[in-house]
């Protein structure tokens, strides 16, 4: 198994605190990047980072390397916490969020070409209409909700939902091929 992060998580499950420190050292910058991008506020992202590693330690025993790489598992924990916190915020869609998405889109394209796994995602995104691909990417990377996406694309929420669901199933067909 060539997944050093998965090994560290397994050691955490065995209550190895040194492994927990190594895991923090090796992965906190990535998870901070995830939290900062979605929450867009440094102090909240730092608070969330503490919660993420608390959950990682307490849930390490439930990580199953057969179901995915260690980093994928960690990022899922960080994204889920960040999105829960975002959805619990009182205010609705903010214009700032939309600006961020627009700015990041071209960079996203170039960075995605790097790894093989990412390459495949990028190929499959190319099979979607550009605005629908942008909606999926904006949701995943920036934590946009259906409400945000509907406002951004100027369509009713239900239409957005139908669009996105169709796009996701199409994406799946391509990725699983």
């Amino acid at each position, binding site marked *: 198994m060539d997944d050093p992060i998965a090994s560290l998580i397994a050691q955490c499950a065995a209550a190895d605190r040194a492994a927990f420190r190594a895991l923090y050292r090796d992965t906190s910058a990535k998870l*901070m*990047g995830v939290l900062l991008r979605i929450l867009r506020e440094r102090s909240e992202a*730092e608070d969330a980072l503490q919660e993420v590693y608390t959950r990682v330690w307490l849930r390490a025993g439930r990580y199953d390397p057969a179901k995915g790489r260690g980093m994928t598992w960690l990022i899922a924990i960080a994204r889920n916490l960040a*999105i829960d916190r975002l959805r619990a915020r009182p205010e609705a869609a903010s214009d700032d969020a939309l600006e961020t998405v627009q700015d990041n889109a071209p960079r996203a394209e170039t960075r*995605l070409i*790097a790894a093989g796994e990412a390459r495949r*995602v990028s190929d499959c995104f190319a099979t979607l209409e550009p605005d629908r691909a942008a909606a*999926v990417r904006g949701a995943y*990377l920036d934590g946009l909700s259906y409400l945000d996406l509907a406002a951004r694309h100027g369509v009713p929420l239900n239409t957005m939902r139908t669009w996105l669901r169709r796009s996701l199933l199409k994406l*799946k067909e391509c990725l699983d091929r």
Partner: protein
Amino acid sequence: MTDAPLTPMEADDALAAEYVLGVLDLAERAEAEARIKRDPGFAGLVAAWESRMAGLNDDFAEAPAPDLLPKIEARLFPKAAPAPTRRRFGLNLGWLAGAALAAVVVLATVATLAPPRPETLVTLATADRRLSYQVSHFGDTLQVARVAGPAAAPGQVHQLWIIAPGASPVSLGLLEDMPLVIDYPVPPAGFVFAVSVEPEGGSPTGLPTGPVILTAIVGEAT
């Protein structure tokens, strides 16, 4: 819409994708999370979507993280019990306080010398004892079991929290029919256990959102 409606299987898969993507609102997310816990088939769909979308993870740029390890470790690994003299007793308690201190000292000694053996740490109970959870420890493992009363009402769940002095609550898990077993060292005196009522699947925010129905302080008689 000219599109044909999704089949039930497609609809489940689409819901899993929507959950992973994060587009659902708070209530829908809580519902999906509850389903992940009780429906392994749905949990599998979610895991498959997490892997599918993992290719996008490269696009999260790294950001320097401050060294929060000391704070995280203080939450997870409370230090050995502080000197009992830190606890304040009213003068009217007199000899009782002395006895309690002695008990704390004895407990601390037992905890460090004796091999791990399940021991009751605190009991979380309503005044009439109709609802009661018992927290016991076994080495670095806590076990929490309901010893009286019913589980939470349908659609709700009891969630267990631990609160270090002056810190935010940290979730230890959901209290359902099976006893909850957690890798967690014995918390020192002064730490608080609490049980709150949360929507199915647990608090969506990582902090208690519903009423706190039970509390107990480690080191104090309940």
